[in-house]
């Protein structure tokens, strides 16, 4: 049996049988592949830096267009002009003052809206009566756009701070309510059974089982609520404000100060980003057990 040697794919031929009568017969046709991790040599920069390139290009084009005069200053100020306006506003204290007014409104809105939404969620999901009284009504009102309530709110509350905060409170309470109550309803009944078997009181059941179990849902609601709070703040500050970022922008609008308007936009964005980051941090802290 001296069949012609079969070509091997591996470097070292595998000798399966070698006698003096028949020379080495290699039967190895399986292709061997390296399983070492592939190294992508093209990627030298971290991906996040590469992505930043696109943003830099956009800003460069914007700056160029503003300098050359393709975009008039009263249409849109260039980045460098915006930066100057921003530092000026910061130095004069106007920006911080406006920022503080806006942050306070959102703070009040969240500070009142979150407990209200949570309390309603507890009432609705822990008793039949509460469910009947609260849930159906909240689910119905949820579909009324909050912005559309503004005329009614102004009639009731005037045009001062109260109306602005009230709108934020309402806007915050809904997502907190919806997410928390559905999280409580979705709680594993086996945990409730366990609580019964170890004789937990109703209060202990709420404190040790219901609330921590609903926490992930609550935090989803909180993230939604913070973004809604900023959104409603922008809207509330466009009407009849005498302070705040929105007021700053509205006043700039009158004088076609597009640089100040852009400063306001950037401030809103930074505030939104910061508060979202804070909620994420809170999430990581509170949900360590995951």
């Amino acid at each position, binding site marked *: 049996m001296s069949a012609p040697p079969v070509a091997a794919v591996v470097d070292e031929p595998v000798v399966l049988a070698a006698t003096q009568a028949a020379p080495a017969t290699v039967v190895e046709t399986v292709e061997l592949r390296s399983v070492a991790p592939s190294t992508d040599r093209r990627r030298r920069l971290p991906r996040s830096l590469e992505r930043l390139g696109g943003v830099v290009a956009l800003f460069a084009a914007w700056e160029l267009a503003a300098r050359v005069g393709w975009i008039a200053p009263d249409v849109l100020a260039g980045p460098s002009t915006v930066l100057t306006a921003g530092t000026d506003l910061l130095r004069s204290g106007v920006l911080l003052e406006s920022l503080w007014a806006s942050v306070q409104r959102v703070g009040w809105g969240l500070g009142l809206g979150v407990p209200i939404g949570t309390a309603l969620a507890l009432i609705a999901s822990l008793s039949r009566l509460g469910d009947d009284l609260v849930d159906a009504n909240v689910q119905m009102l949820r579909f009324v756009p909050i912005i559309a309530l503004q005329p009614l709110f102004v009639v009731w509350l005037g045009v001062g701070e109260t109306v602005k905060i009230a709108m934020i409170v309402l806007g915050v309470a809904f997502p907190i309510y919806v997410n928390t109550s559905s999280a409580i309803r979705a709680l594993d009944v*086996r945990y409730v*059974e*366990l609580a*019964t078997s*170890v*004789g937990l009181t109703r209060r202990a059941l709420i404190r040790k089982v219901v609330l*921590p179990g609903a*926490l992930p849902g609550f935090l989803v609601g909180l993230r939604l609520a913070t973004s809604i709070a900023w959104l409603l703040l922008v809207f509330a500050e466009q009407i009849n404000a005498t302070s705040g970022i929105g007021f700053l922008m509205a006043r700039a609008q009158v004088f076609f100060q597009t640089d100040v308007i852009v400063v306001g936009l950037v401030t809103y964005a930074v505030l939104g980003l910061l508060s979202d980051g804070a909620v994420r941090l809170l999430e990581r802290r509170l949900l360590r*057990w995951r």
Partner: protein
Amino acid sequence: MALTNLAVSARDVRRTFDGRTVLHGLDLDLRPGEFVALLGRSGSGKSTFLRALAGLDTGFDGTLTVPRRRSVVFQDARLLPWMSVLDNVLLGLDGRSERERAREVLNEVGLAAHEDAWPRTLSGGEAQRAALARALVRSPDLLLLDEPFGALDALTRIRMHVLVQQLWARHRPAALLVTHDVDEAILLADRVLVLTDGRFSLDVPVEIHQPRHRGDQRFIDLRARLLAELGVDESAPTTRQGAHA
């Protein structure tokens, strides 16, 4: 009271679900410190009976006298994922006065090093040992075990059998083990009950000295008897198929 020398007394316990009778008038006495295994096929009503004893189901008819201090170990460890192992063991107890005792019991089940761990980081066997610790820290007069080893792999199960044996010998609660594993019942219990269609169809003492071995002739005989009662004939299915082939 006349019942002080009994851990459990059940008289004519019946349970119906939507007109379907699951328990047909069960009578049972359990002495303090007695370990009883309750065998039955799925749907025989054994878990329903355990839930009634645990106080998790109050929809039954009849009279049931149980100790105030009783604990349940479920098939799933059922640890609250947002609490440390130690806090899970302490669930429902005074965390300050019982903490040391909870640590002792965790040590007994071999989890002393895991008291601060999150339940999600435990293996199946470890989680079930934590559940055992949670049951035992309450010094129960009645320990209810609802197929507690059903979800564990075979090797872990053997280790858990030994552990439960040791813990029961030390704490001596009356114990009711619901299982469908005949060997497990014979290994652990003083007495084995078989529940068939909501009635006790067999009640036999296990008169084999501990430690018991599966190869013991009395073990083999009892296993055959219990399997027959459960409607399983170990030799039958293959023989029958073989005859047709």
